[in-house]
């Protein structure tokens, strides 16, 4: 069987003529589904499969994401040989539909936005299912998904040890925050290693998708009326309750960037490395070009940036925004 996830490399980011801290990039863009989502979502599907004791009870997987979560579900199901249905709203890009389909999933287009597609999936499609076991895969809000994401922290700690890097030199982990799934995985992983209190997490959002930042300012989780940012993969109107509590408990730093900054970062990174990441990922990557955003850091300090990946935007999308 092919692997559901891979151990991604942790490699130094190289910025010419820059005397700041060392940034290490965790290349989650290399996951089979093109983003970190492969970790949590394949873990959820595999865990569910393993829990079914009777081989007669076949499992079918359902997702309502026309983005990276849907693609990750489709790829994981293809590997596990489980049928997968993805319901996506009309606004979904044809390119993503093609990607999800070519991974082997059945795609049905329904509704004007995610909520409509999601409701249709749960209220209608799943109830009509002929399979005795059905699994609903939420894009992020499930502790088993976070468990899957958290394995990247185990890898990072192992990789730092392999290269004889002192964990005390790590002055932060930078990750993008949409609904909080990746953030929860990172913090859970750090907690497991007793590091959640000592290594700060920088939670990156874009202006218009800044539900965590707004919630922290309000002192309670808020719900956004609307999403407005090119970083559509960060576009969640709500933040997980768990993420909000962890952000307060561990004093994570919330940073909000404007769209222009992240698009410029994506284009620059693409020019330097030939690797295209979407704006949701560019939000984290941006700190490599502007270390001062993270506070005072010296050349001996190390910052780990989760290059979360994502396939929602093409180069032409970025260029036209630019």
């Amino acid at each position: 069987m092919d692997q559901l996830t891979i151990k991604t490399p942790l490699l130094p980011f190289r910025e010419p003529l820059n005397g700041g801290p060392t940034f290490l990039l965790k290349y989650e863009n290399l996951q089979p589904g093109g983003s970190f989502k492969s970790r949590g979502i394949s873990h959820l599907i595999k865990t569910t499969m393993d829990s079914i004791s009777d081989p007669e009870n076949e499992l079918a997987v359902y997702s309502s994401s026309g983005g990276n979560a849907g693609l990750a579900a489709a790829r994981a199901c293809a590997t596990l040989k489980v049928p997968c249905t993805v319901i996506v709203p009309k606004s979904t890009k044809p390119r993503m539909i093609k990607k999800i389909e070519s991974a082997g999933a059945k795609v049905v287009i329904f509704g004007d936005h995610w909520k409509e597609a999601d409701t249709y999936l749960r209220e209608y499609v799943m109830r009509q299912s002929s399979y005795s076991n059905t699994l609903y895969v939420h894009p992020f809000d499930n502790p088993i998904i976070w468990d899957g994401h958290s394995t990247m922290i185990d890898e990072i700690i192992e990789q730092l040890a392999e290269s004889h890097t002192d964990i005390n030199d790590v002055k932060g982990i930078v990750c993008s925050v949409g609904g909080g799934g990746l953030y929860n995985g990172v913090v859970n992983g750090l907690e497991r290693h007793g590091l959640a209190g000592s290594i700060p997490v920088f939670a990156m959002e874009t202006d218009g998708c800044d539900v965590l930042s707004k919630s922290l300012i309000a002192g309670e989780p808020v719900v956004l009326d609307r999403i407005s940012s090119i970083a559509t993969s960060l576009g969640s109107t709500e933040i997980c309750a768990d993420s909000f509590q962890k952000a307060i408990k561990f004093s994570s730093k919330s940073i909000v960037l404007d769209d222009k900054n992240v698009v410029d970062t994506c284009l620059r990174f693409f020019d330097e490395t030939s690797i295209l990441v979407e704006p949701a990922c560019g939000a984290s990557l941006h700190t490599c070009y502007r270390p001062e955003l993270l506070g005072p850091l010296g050349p001996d300090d190390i910052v780990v940036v989760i290059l979360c990946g994502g396939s929602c935007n093409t180069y032409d999308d970025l260029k036209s925004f630019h």
Partner: protein
Amino acid sequence: MYVHIFPTSYSQTSINRLIMKAQLFSKTPLLKHQFKRSKGPQVLLKYEFLQPSGSFKSRGIGHLISTKVEEIKKSSPEKIGHVFASSGGNAGLAAAVASLELNVPCTVVVSNATRPRIIEKIRSYGADVVVHGNHWKEADSFMKEHLMKKLDSFKYEPIYSHPFDNPLIWEGHSFMVDEIMDVLASSKIPITKIKGIVCSFGGGGLYNGLILGLQRYNLADKIPIVCVETKGTDVLSASLRVGAPVEFEKISSCATSLGTATISTTAYQNVKRHGSKSAVISDTEVISTCLQFSNDTNIVAEPGCGATLYFGYNIDKLQNILGSDIKDDDYVILIGCGGSSTSLEDLKELSSFTNCEFELPSTGVSRLNSHSLHTLQ
């Protein structure tokens, strides 16, 4: 002929130490890649895209420069090394990146055919770029005859960095074989399951590195290497046909990184000695591969690298070349050598020029001008 003196084997620890000493090159992952394969052997891809300079050249050129810098420190501690590289491509970029890391001055001489984008990129790593001549040979002689000779010899010691033809470069490249062996061992894949390694072939530097690495494990005669060129840069293929190394008068292919007039003599001899295979694909085939790969992975591979990736998408053709009975649980390794000579815009432009989106992969139809060749003395 060169005489090689190598340790019997580079242990993983010593490689790690090399990486720690200076981050001249990265240990890159070797990952199973699906391509569009439905049957046939498993394909493992070595991600040399992730090297500091964007290509495998960081290994060999980083190793050459760091070795020379160390030698100068010992032999003439009052001097510092000054790197001279004649390449308007990935080798020049690798030299600039390594020189920055080692904190030594670097001059890169490029011909006036070099794209402004590459010049800017090399400059962004702090190197001095001089534009001279119509092609590599003119740039290279100008650099050797004028710039290197005029160096203040009391203060500096010149370090000449050829794009590929130097045993130290091959030794640096050869470390990727140690990494591959390490991953195969830890993933419990028996060496006997590896039925071939595919690499792109320009001047033969990468190929020589692979052979050198395989020789350390006594595998050079056991694992066949497939050397891929494009029509118009197929100096190796032409040399094998003629029976002696030939020189091309002109290069005509979009895979400019593979475009060398001559190949390394050692590479030619290695190919003969170890029975390596030669494959030539068309520009159309390579460009559609690059576009397909960039759509699949969000990584843009230049044609020089796409030549190898082509066989990931056309595994049946690879099986034909290797000729042996390859089973579905066997493996082939593709070296994703990387390189940044071609932007996505360039690729799209090239694809509209060659209409490759509408053409089926062909086996020898070339739209290119014929090239002339003559046997070397």
